[in-house]
């Protein structure tokens, strides 16, 4: 490989996932990719495109529609020392995999007292828009966070997409890797050489003293937009992306809230028993007697996801509603403000047909 590398090279999130996968497949012959459609002409939004042409049909292959067994197959191959990456076009399909993931993958290392490890990566893509609706838009990270023995990563940037996927592949434990299709087109600087981003570290994306906004997956993008809106009214928001959800880097979040005295936790799922609940609970435990703080959570509206656009718009938090909620946290709960903001382009420009 050339040593002349462009250190400012830009990749999309999808390209970063592809590159991470390809490089790890080059590095380790035990790494393989499988799942419905990974070797089809669309190659899972390009993230697995033609990998079988580079690495052979045994290392990037389509499967029958058998999510439960295929998860077991991944576990079995991992027990034999391989490093499978099992890809799901929608995270909702993981509901078919939970017996194997929760009853087996998460428990094997402990249950067999370290005699085995289960280094699998389960990629789940969150759907949104164009009428994905109730069954194609769910994010299940809190299910995996609830149970010990499984890691959860939800990168929001191309850089983290690459670094975290490499880290997940190299990790000796089951890792659920959560992607969001509205992030796929976003571009950013990504080093060409392989690198592993250590799991378990939050990123403070912007510094600010007025309010801490912790956002997850696609909500990171919306929170950053909200941060700019808030600037206009003189509010400095510290936006934190936990990146890894299990283990969750609460030290970074708690230190920020201790300073700002305000937390807005914005999840890309429902709030009830979700990640935002965990964040508030841990802050309450950690800061009691130390620092009072104001707190709010945002997430999916407490309904199944509707398909029609006007209702779907109300279902998700967005830059405007996040900014408004942060505003009222800072100014007092009565305070309201109506920033002018248009819909995020990755959403407004998304034209289906799926």
């Amino acid at each position: 490989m050339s040593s002349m590398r462009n250190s400012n090279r830009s990749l999309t999130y999808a390209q970063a996932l592809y590159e991470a996968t390809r490089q790890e497949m080059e590095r380790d012959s035990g790494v393989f990719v499988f799942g419905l459609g990974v070797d089809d002409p669309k190659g899972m939004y390009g993230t697995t495109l033609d990998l079988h042409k580079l690495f052979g049909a045994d290392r990037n292959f389509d499967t029958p529609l058998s999510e439960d067994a295929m998860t077991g197959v991944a576990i079995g191959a991992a027990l034999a020392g391989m490093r499978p990456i099992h890809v799901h076009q929608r995270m909702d399909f993981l509901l078919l995999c939970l017996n194997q993931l929760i009853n087996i993958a998460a428990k094997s290392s402990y249950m067999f007292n370290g005699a085995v490890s289960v280094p699998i990566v389960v990629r789940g893509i969150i759907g949104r828009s164009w009428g994905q609706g109730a069954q194609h838009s769910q994010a299940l990270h809190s299910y995996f966070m609830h149970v010990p023995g499984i890691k959860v990563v939800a990168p929001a940037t191309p850089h983290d997409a690459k670094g975290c996927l490499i880290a997940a592949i190299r990790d000796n434990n089951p890792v659920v890797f959560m992607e969001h299709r509205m992030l796929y087109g976003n571009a950013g600087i990504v080093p060409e050489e392989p690198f592993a981003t250590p799991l378990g570290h939050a990123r403070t994306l912007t510094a600010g003293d007025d309010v801490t906004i912790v956002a997850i997956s696609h909500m990171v993008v919306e929170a950053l937009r909200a941060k700019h809106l808030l600037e206009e009214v003189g509010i400095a928001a510290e936006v934190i992306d936990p990146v890894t959800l299990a283990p969750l880097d609460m030290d970074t979040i708690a230190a920020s809230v201790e300073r700002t005295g305000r937390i807005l936790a914005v999840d890309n799922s429902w709030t009830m028993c979700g990640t935002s609940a965990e964040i508030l609970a841990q802050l309450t435990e950690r800061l009691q007697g130390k620092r009072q703080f104001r707190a709010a959570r945002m997430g999916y509206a407490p309904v199944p996801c509707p398909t029609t656009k006007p209702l779907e718009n109300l279902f998700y938090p967005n830059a405007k509603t996040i900014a408004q909620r942060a505003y009222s946290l800072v100014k007092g709960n009565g305070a309201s403000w109506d920033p002018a903001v248009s819909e995020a382009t990755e959403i407004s420009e998304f034209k289906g047909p799926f």
Partner: protein
Amino acid sequence: MTNFTDTAQLESIYRSLYRIRRVEEKIIEVYPSDAIKSPVHLSIGQESVAVGVCSVLKPDDIAFGTYRGHALYLAKGGDLKRMIAELYGKRDGSAGGKAGSMHLIDIGVGVMGTSAIVATTVPQAVGYAFALKSRKSKSIVVSFFGEGAMDEGVSYESLNFAALRKLPILFICENNHYAIYSHVRDRMPEPNPCERAGVFKIPAQKIEHGDTFKIRAASEKAVDKIRAGGGPRFIECMTYRWRDHVGPEEDRRWKYRSDAELDEWIKRDEVARIGGMLGSDARRAIEREVDAEIAEAFAFAEKSSFPGPAELGTNVFHA
């Protein structure tokens, strides 16, 4: 063709086939306007399966299907206006705009809600059949699913239970050869859904070439046996999807299947074939009526309003 001579029935079958075809074509026409923001899985090329089977069902028989559900919904008698309004995400849609193309429902005519998760309605159909049998109803259930559903374990569990309990259910496997871009022979060591159903001692039959009359005849026989208490039956209907898995486009450019294969199936077009059996006046009368109905349905959908914010929170729970 079979000895199918009753003109009224022939006309009714043609009307149903033509109506589905034209609805899908109208969707294709409208789609680029972005009025339909819903993933449409078109039935073009596969109309004969739903039409053949539903032509022998009674209104209070029950059908469960999939996200590729336009043909079934229409063939079983679902309200066209409400379907189009649903695709438009409008308040007058069959689910008030909350569901879109993948989740059509019209329980008044026995169309139970379809699902976007492969194979999920198969056990539900079995459960409904269990209820019908428990209640000594004369109705039966038909479960429609793609051959992709035969990859899912839940289908075997469902067939087993239906057979064990001798439930009044007809399984219709719509084998269009592909699950998205994956050919059935890449998913099964031998593509043999009938044989698979057979191990549960469910009589199974395969109908080639999407032949509407053969599908109808096989269904008629199966439904009679089921209604007489004979337990489940299974029919595999070979068929073909002309358009892309999802969306309005053709998909030759993706090269996952050969043009020749597609063209052979297009040549078999049941809509054209059966239309050709009608006198041209009769045919034109049907087409005119149907075209008018469709135009009206799209106009209705256009005019219907979007649901308002208050509707976001309704019907999460049933009172």
